[in-house]
């Protein structure tokens, strides 16, 4: 009864809302989409694009109407599909969850032998971001320190390998830990003066630091070759065996198999997979140690930490250094995979993407970070065809996912120790995000 009475009302309200939205869209799009500036002799000229403007306004109008009338059936209720999906997920993870991680890892090891080159390349990229996400997760997710300049450590790792290998002929495996340590050292050098800053002050200083590193790389021509970048960075070797068609000590000769360019890709894939798993293992181990618990305590309440005798500066520094260490590993891998690096690759947008992966995934959750990396970076690759639009979609996706799930995709927290035998999660709503 009431429903039928309410229907025309609801329709009218929706129509009104859609009209308002269309009006707003008209204002927004009027000059930006309705007019196109073009280069012309003697300055700029322009032409009108009424069709595009009309299309944009119409899109907003019907989009809004659709959302109001079809999607949000009731006022602000979550779509049914979503709730059944999450319930199903919860059931699945509680029952089969413990087999999930091993299954995924085994799958990850099998993948390179069945996947195509394209899939493998994408997987390597995704794994690189998973590694970086897990590294940054230590800083942002566990210790609750907002770092907007994480790419700086990535850059330090990449340039460390590029310079040490091209100048001194050091191998990838020798440089890898070194690059990590160098990045960690930088993390400490940066961290020491700024870690007593709180919240967004820390964020802006780390951002500034990231920019400083990039500007230095860009301008210190004698060492970094500036914008030209460093090329000819050696590829990693398999116990001294090279992945080349010709030459001595090659992989295919040693094993007596036919040369395939896939060997090198598979090898790179394995390296990054192992590095990512190492990151995951070390982080999980650290979480169960006093230092890891202190990180999380710091995120929860810094003042209480100090009252318990915890040196918060040191604790923050270790989080920063460990996070930077993994960033350095990722950077070295990036350099050896690309064979060429330039400051272009280390812009703020990289930091933003890595941070977005951590937050979208659910701070502190490794599985969440992995899922977010697959969704964001994988999605990014899917839209490769629409190259022009993919950053646009990427930005939009960040907004939509965040509005949809502000606490990230996986938000629960697994305690690090249990007195009883039952292992239960802490609901994400109770976990704080830190102020640093």
């Amino acid at each position, binding site marked *: 009864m009431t429903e039928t009475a309410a229907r025309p009302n609801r329709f009218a309200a929706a129509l009104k809302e859609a009209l308002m939205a269309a009006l707003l869209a008209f204002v927004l799009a009027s000059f930006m989409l309705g007019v196109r500036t073009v280069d012309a002799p003697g*300055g700029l000229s322009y032409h009108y694009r009424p069709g595009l403007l009309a299309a944009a306004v119409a899109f907003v109008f019907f989009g809004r109407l659709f959302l109001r009338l079809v999607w949000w059936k009731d006022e602000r209720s979550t779509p049914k599909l979503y709730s059944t999906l999450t319930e199903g997920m919860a059931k699945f993870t509680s029952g089969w969850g413990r087999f999930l991680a091993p299954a995924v890892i085994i799958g990850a090891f099998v993948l390179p032998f069945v996947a195509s080159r394209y899939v493998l390349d994408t997987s390597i990229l995704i794994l690189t971001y998973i590694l970086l996400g897990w590294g940054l997760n230590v800083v942002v997710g566990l210790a609750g320190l907002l770092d907007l300049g994480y790419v700086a450590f990535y850059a330090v790792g990449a340039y460390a390998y590029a310079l040490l290998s091209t100048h001194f002929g050091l191998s990838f495996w020798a440089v890898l830990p070194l690059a990590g340590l160098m990045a960690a050292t930088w993390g400490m050098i940066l961290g020491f003066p700024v870690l007593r800053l709180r919240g967004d002050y820390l964020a*802006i200083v780390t951002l500034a630091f990231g920019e400083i590193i990039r*500007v230095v790389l860009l301008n210190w021509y004698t060492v970094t070759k500036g914008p030209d970048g460093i090329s000819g960075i050696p590829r990693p070797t398999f116990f001294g065996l090279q992945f080349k068609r010709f030459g001595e000590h090659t992989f295919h000769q040693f094993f007596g198999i036919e040369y395939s360019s896939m060997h090198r890709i598979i090898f790179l894939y394995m390296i990054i997979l192992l590095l990512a798993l190492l990151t995951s293992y070390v982080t999980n181990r650290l979480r169960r140690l006093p230092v890891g618990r202190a990180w999380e305590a710091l995120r929860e309440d810094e003042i209480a930490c100090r009252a318990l005798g915890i040196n918060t500066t040191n604790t923050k520094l270790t989080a920063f250094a460990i996070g930077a260490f993994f960033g350095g590993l990722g950077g070295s891998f990036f350099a050896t995979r690309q064979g060429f690096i330039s400051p272009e690759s280390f812009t703020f947008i990289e930091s933003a993407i890595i941070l977005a992966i951590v937050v979208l995934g659910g701070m502190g959750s490794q599985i969440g970070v992995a899922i977010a990396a697959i969704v964001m970076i994988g999605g990014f690759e899917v839209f490769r065809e629409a190259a022009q639009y993919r950053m646009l979609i990427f930005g939009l996706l960040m907004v939509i996912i965040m509005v949809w799930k502000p606490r990230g995709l996986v938000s629960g927290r697994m305690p690090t120790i249990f007195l009883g035998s039952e292992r239960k999660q802490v609901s994400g709503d109770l976990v704080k995000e830190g102020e640093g």
Partner: protein
Amino acid sequence: MEYFLQQLINGLTLGSIYGLIAIGYTMVYGIIGMINFAHGDIFMVGAFISLIVFLILMSIGVTFIPLALLIVLVVAMVVTSAYGWTVERLAYRPLRSSFRLAPLITAIGMSIFLENYVQIAQGARVKPLQPVITGGYTIMQGNGFTVQLSNIQIIIMVLTVALMAVFSWIIARTPLGRAQRACEQDRLMAGLLGVNVDRTISLTFVIGAALAAVAGLMFLLYYGVIDFYIGFVAGIKAFTAAVLGGIGSLPGAMLGGLIIGLIETFWSAYFTIEYKDVAAFSMLAIVLIFLPSGLLGKPEVEKV
């Protein structure tokens, strides 16, 4: 001395533009405590709208420059404000009183979106504009060097001072300003006392965007060339300025903007232009280490 004076003038002009953008950051931060990362791109949108409106006016025959500029200013402020309002409504309001990092991520997402939206809509190439306001005064001459104060520089500085005065007055004296300050102190309580919190926050974004549009127009007139990427760099500088001055403080934002503008200009003039950003950012780090709440920010007493 002449060289120094000239750099001082240039620095103050650049600083004024930074300051105007910084006000948008500082007001938003003051009221909802978030870094509105998309604000730099709102500035960029403002510059583009200004450019397009100006082109249209020129071609339809409005060639009386002061009138044209006035129309450009008003239209750019209105349209850019609509962008500011929309960004707040879509990306920030749903996350109000949520997780602190969530709006930061949507802000970064919005920033990426706006940059690429403008790039797609208007093309990636730089957009030049022939000089609109020309002429100026020679203040001093000597040692083979002339100190010039151009008309556009005068306009930028005067307009900045005037806008600062107006907005300081709004914050200090009007009901809107009172509502804003109340929301800054305690949003929940302000709401309970009948302040329309959503509207106040929306208005804050609108004001910030309007000022950014002014800054965008001035940037366009001063440099004569814009592209879709100007928002990022200017945004970071302006945010740095806001933090330097003490975030949440209006005069602080202006002061921070001027300092950043001066550092950049002087560093470029006397040292190397390549490292001017390094100089500005290092200054920020140094100030924050010694004055953790910025130059004019209220020192934060730790509540135990």
